[in-house]
């Protein structure tokens, strides 16, 4: 990230100016596209150079045209692929008389794809303006002009005492401000060994300690609510059903790390998340849990919610920081780590929303109680998992670590619908390996999934049934990978495009050349997007070689 641009943004932030990205989003909302004049205006108002703002305008999905008065999009996420093999996209386009990224000549309607609306429990999902509809009849209903707003199933906890699905009540912060010094809370979180829930599994306490120790006039807490993993709707549920728990976790992080301000970056694909968090923040101010002198303790903490604009890689922490500051959401090489140089160049903790939701429990009950939540696993705490529409009871479940994937699929989510059978699962998002049905006795746990080339990731469990064409799944994954590459590092920028070309052409794929490409992606890429995409592809090569159309 350019230090000069970050410094320009920091100075402008003190004048409370909106970011360039906010201004460009407003332009699209106002008149459907970003014009040269919009770029110039956004540059003048945000204090950034015109070329820089132009670069931002060309990066995010939400800023790309064409856009009609009515904008209809079909979800191209993996759960929707598992449900229809992509037919809902072609059927909706045909019904509207539009191809993807086309607009009617009179400007009345435009059609596009969107990567995961988080209605994976009811696929396929569509969004018309900001109204989401979902289900097997959704395309027909939308084309008939009567789309029903999609409902979301309640979440369920398997724990006797729910941790993440318990409504946040600020009791962890209340106890902390009464009994614990910041160093004591930090020590508890380090001892609890909270592993990051966003996918990487990095210990949260270590990030906090680095940030606390780093020199900086101010420090920041950033909650990563950019849940871009197709098939996941865990953070969506947390932000929309339990925003207080997330806010409390952020305030506790601020207390321990020495920060007075927090940001939450939420996805624009979740139009209800920002309003939910904003309302909870207002209530917390009214109740004295946020503000300048929280409950007379002298501790000050406030939170701002920022909405993204369509980019998967913005879920990577350095890209997230760039997006938060209104820049292109590209990845930066580390070091410097965010703990050293983050928001406005200041020390910053970046934690996933679910990670932060674990903290109030630790603050209230201590590290040992947190370890006791998952007695059958080396991993501490509980985990939210979510299932796709292929299952009988798809929703978000709070589970201990260590259950077998078979129990999760059969007992928790009720097995597959309509007597279908599991062919394979993709666990933890698009960078997670694919587990074939014969390995369902693998435990849901960081180490045991890793042994099968899979990962806990963010906790989504997407089942493919016996009708899924594994070559089509390969093309689906690579299309996503190539589309979402931020374009910074060469292996990912070019390699994912080439991998997609190899499989989408329909021609036999030279396995050796493909594996050589995977090596370059895995070992050469700058971030987990390029280095992680090979995991599911290797699983497919290992478990379904006969279905991939390989040669040589």
């Amino acid at each position, binding site marked *: 990230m*350019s*230090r*000069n*641009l970050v410094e320009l943004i920091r100075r402008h932030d003190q004048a409370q100016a909106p970011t360039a990205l906010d201004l460009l989003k407003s332009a699209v909302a106002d008149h459907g596209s970003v014009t*040269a004049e919009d*770029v*110039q205006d956004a540059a003048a108002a945000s204090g950034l*150079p*015109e*070329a*820089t*703002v*132009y*670069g931002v305008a*060309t*990066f995010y999905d939400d800023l790309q045209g064409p856009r009609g008065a009515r904008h209809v999009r079909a979800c191209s996420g993996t759960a929707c692929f598992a449900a229809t093999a992509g037919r809902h996209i072609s059927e909706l386009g045909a019904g509207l008389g539009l191809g993807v990224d086309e607009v009617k000549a009179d400007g009345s309607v435009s059609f596009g794809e969107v990567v995961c609306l988080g209605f994976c429990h009811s696929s396929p999902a569509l969004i018309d303006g900001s109204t989401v509809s979902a289900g097997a009849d959704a395309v027909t209903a939308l084309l008939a002009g009567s789309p029903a707003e999609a409902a979301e199933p309640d979440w369920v906890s398997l724990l006797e005492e729910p941790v993440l699905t318990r409504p946040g009540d600020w009791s962890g912060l209340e106890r902390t401000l009464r009994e614990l010094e910041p160093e004591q809370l930090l020590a508890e979180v380090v001892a609890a060994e909270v592993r990051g829930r966003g996918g990487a599994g990095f210990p949260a306490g270590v990030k906090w300690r680095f940030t606390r120790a780093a020199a900086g006039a101010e420090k920041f807490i950033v909650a990563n609510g950019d849940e871009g993993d197709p098939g996941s709707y865990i953070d969506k549920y947390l932000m929309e059903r339990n925003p207080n728990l997330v806010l409390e976790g952020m305030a506790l992080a601020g207390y321990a790390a020495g920060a007075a301000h927090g940001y939450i970056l939420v996805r624009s694909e979740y139009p209800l998340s920002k309003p939910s968090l904003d309302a909870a923040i207002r209530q917390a101010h009214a109740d004295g849990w946020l503000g300048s002198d929280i409950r007379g303790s002298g501790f000050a903490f406030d939170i701002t919610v920022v909405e993204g604009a369509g*980019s998967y890689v913005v879920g990577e922490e350095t890209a997230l920081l760039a997006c938060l500051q209104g820049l*292109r959401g*590209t990845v*930066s*090489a*580390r*070091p410097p780590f965010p703990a050293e140089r983050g928001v406005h160049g200041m020390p910053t903790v970046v934690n996933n929303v679910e990670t932060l939701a674990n903290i109030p429990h630790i603050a209230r009950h201590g590290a040992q109680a947190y370890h006791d939540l998952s007695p059958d696993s080396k991993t501490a705490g509980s985990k939210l998992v979510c299932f796709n529409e292929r299952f009988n009871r798809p929703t978000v479940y709070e589970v201990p670590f260590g259950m077998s994937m078979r129990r999760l699929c059969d007992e928790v989510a009720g097995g597959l619908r309509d007597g279908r059978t599991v062919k394979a699962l993709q666990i933890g998002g698009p960078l997670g390996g694919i587990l074939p049905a014969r390995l369902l006795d693998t435990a849901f746990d960081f180490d045991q999934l890793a042994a099968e080339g899979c990962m806990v990731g963010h906790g989504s469990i997407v089942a493919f049934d016996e009708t899924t064409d594994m070559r089509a799944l390969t093309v689906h994954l690579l299309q996503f990978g*190539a*589309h*979402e*590459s*931020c*374009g*910074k*590092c*060469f*292996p990912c*920028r*070019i*390699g*994912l*495009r*080439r991998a997609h*070309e*190899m499989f989408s052409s329909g021609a036999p794929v030279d396995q050796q*050349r493909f594996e*050589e*490409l995977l*090596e*370059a992606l895995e*070992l*050469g*890429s*700058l971030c987990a997007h390029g280095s992680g995409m090979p995991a599911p592809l290797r699983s497919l090569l290992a478990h379904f070689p006969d279905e991939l159309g390989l040669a040589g």
Partner: protein
Amino acid sequence: MQVTVDGVAVEVSDGATVLEAARQAGSWVPTLCFDDRQAPFGACRACMVAVDGAAKPVPACTTVCRDGMTVDTNDPTARRVVSAVVELVMSELPSPPAPHTELAQVATRLGVSGSRWPGVTHQVEHDLRHPYLAFEHELCISCGRCVRACDEVQGTFALTAVGRGFGANVAAGIGSGFLDSACVSCGACADTCPTDAITERLLLDGGINGGPPPDAPRLRKRLSTT
């Protein structure tokens, strides 16, 4: 602190990168996005090396030295990744880079000629309106050196990365070219470009006083023979 690169022990200061240590030791590490006038960027992944015998190579330009570190710039795995990266870069250009360019020289030294992964190449698009600077976008490999030169060296911010994924490129101003941007014609971008995507036009080519601008391939040929 002391670092050993390819068997040669060198003394480096705190915060030195593996790339700096390698150069100090006289070892060649290929680079494409690196320019020692700019902060390390870590985009091209051509500088991958092995450190302390680990199986996974690391980028030399953004990895900081630790005391006692051993670096192998010829590690077979690292070299495989580097060659693959350079092959991928060559595959995105519609025509091979001119022999004098950094990209061509890195490819030659690595023994990379063709690509195992041919595919779509960049669309040919030329900005030849500016009197001093020509931009042939199809030769751009998105290394970001020109954008950073304009930011970190010149402080003009006339250039930006645009697009994303394979469609990434560089644009001047609001996509309208050098002439309509904040460009002050300093030439720092052309100076650092490793592929001649951006080149300086010569006064004698007639760009200034209304003569027809030379076509870009001729320009490149001239530069490559001087």
